[in-house]
């Protein structure tokens, strides 16, 4: 309940730096409690969302380039929102001359056309979130690759979790 409320507040308000830090700590607590109560953690996955570091690249020191999704979902996890806030902060610091493409991807366990739509939905979830943190939509374009560009060629749940992703790529 608390988590949902926070999500709503987050997406509709912009926060001052110190308040955000506070909120982050708060969210971390929520993640921990959620972890303990509902989702089983299997090392690199929480539920079926990838939480590890393999395949992840960095836009800058400490700024991960990608976030991961649950099967058939485009909702951003608290960990994903954390990554995206860091992306947004870095984008703001870098100035308006830089623009980005957000690639949406799906795993191989869906039909091709649905996956194209799902990848587009995931990329837009990321774009929307970055925009609420002050990044102009004109700097952000989206492209869906559906299941066409897996990063891990495996046919197992861990590989699929790494492939259900959205990657932010610098375009200039």
């Amino acid at each position: 309940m608390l988590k949902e409320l926070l999500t709503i507040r987050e997406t509709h308000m912009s926060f001052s730096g110190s308040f955000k830090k506070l909120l982050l700590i708060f969210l971390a607590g929520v993640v921990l409690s959620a972890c303990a109560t509902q989702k089983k953690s299997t090392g690199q996955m929480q539920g079926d969302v990838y939480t590890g570091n393999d395949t992840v690249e960095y836009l800058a020191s400490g700024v991960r380039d990608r976030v991961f999704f649950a099967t058939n979902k485009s909702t951003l996890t608290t960990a994903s929102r954390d990554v995206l806030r860091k992306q947004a902060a870095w984008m703001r610091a870098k100035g308006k001359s830089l623009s980005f493409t957000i690639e949406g991807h799906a795993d191989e366990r869906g039909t091709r056309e649905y996956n194209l739509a799902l990848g587009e939905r995931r990329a837009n979830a990321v774009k929307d979130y970055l925009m609420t943190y002050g990044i102009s939509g004109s700097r952000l374009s989206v492209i869906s690759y559906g299941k066409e560009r897996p990063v891990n060629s495996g046919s197992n749940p861990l590989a699929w979790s790494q492939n259900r992703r959205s990657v932010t790529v610098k375009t200039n």
Partner: protein
Amino acid sequence: MKKIILFLVCFYLSILSNSAIALVEVDITRGNLDPLPIAVSPLYVEPGSKEIQNEGKIIKNIGEEISKVIEINFRRSGLFNPLKKDSFVQNPDIAHIKPRFEDWRLIKAQALVTGKVSISEDKLRAEFRLWDVVASKEMIALAFSTTPDNWRRVAHIISDKIYQRLTGETGYFDTRIIYVSETGKKTQRYKKLAIMDQDGANVKYLTLGNELVLTPRFSPKNQLVTYLSYFRNLPRVYLLDIETGVQEVVGDFPGMTFAPRFSPDGKKIIMSFAQDGNSDIYTMNLETRVVERITDHTSIDTSPSYSPDGKYICFNSDRSGLQQIYVMRSDGSNVKRITFGKGLYGTPVWSPRGDLIAFTKVHKGKFYIGVMRADGSGERLLTENFYQEAPSWSPNGRVLIFYRETKTNSQGEGFSAKLWSIDLTGYNERLIETETDGSDPSWSSLLSK
């Protein structure tokens, strides 16, 4: 592609439509576990015929080659059992005039195909007869003229005429398949549009592989294809004329368009347009360029396919929370969900006969190709596998072609994508051999109608 004109001449009408005691017939409504034994005699080559070449090699005996193409069609259909030629006792020329039925009965043939072919400078003339061996009767006789390089099509047309005579339904052998040719490792596939005859011959690549291409679909008018291309990293629906090679973007959409198909009259393209995370279904009229929005929902609406009368559209949507199949009127009204079984349903494709919808079902980690009636009743799953999807109907609605991908091993190796076909009955599942890996097959209409 060259324009092909085939002259069809009915030259022997004496026993036309005398079906009162026709004994040989093939029932295709059930799985056929007892295919009809048929002898396909090599076509007799008239002396003085010009030699023709195939891929640089001279064909030694064109009459035998034509009969082989017919035999392969028949065997692959699952309905016929072409008998071994070394058991044939009668010479092709004599058999074509008057078969000794007792000889053919001896090798258990129930039907016999004989023929004659002659080739002059720029003309190939072929005739064939189909004989009912049991009743000692001629069933049909036809002759065709075309250019010599069309000799495989002659074999396919003969196959279609025989199929039609023996099953009562139109054939599907004189057709082509457009698909996506795939090479390279799983994380970096190169994809090209490719077209081939229904039996895998005459492969041609239509794009170079510089950009990702997906989901080609034939127009019912055959020479046009619509597909998704990532040209300049902008995923858009394109229209390609395979005779002229001319292509163009379909419409002027500010975002990804995908999942295209033609309307049954070939005048419209129906597709999805994705914007701000939401995919809806649109049509564009190719003559007037008018774009119409058909669905308006916050869910993903995609994979649209018209009913053959153009009055309805089936599509898949996750508006219920998960991917399911819906049917609506072609103006977008009266949307009804038709799948309520366990699992997810996608890629609905309306049968050219109008009665069935083929689909992909995902349930408990398995992928199924199935069919159901247009109201969602009578679901029948034809085949189960690790991954398979995207069924496309043969023009007579009797066979489905689809693609299948393999599970990789623990090192992530061993990936492949192949084209397969299966009969509507659920029997006769077959791999379709292609030079490279293949996916997203789409079956053309009959080339000669």
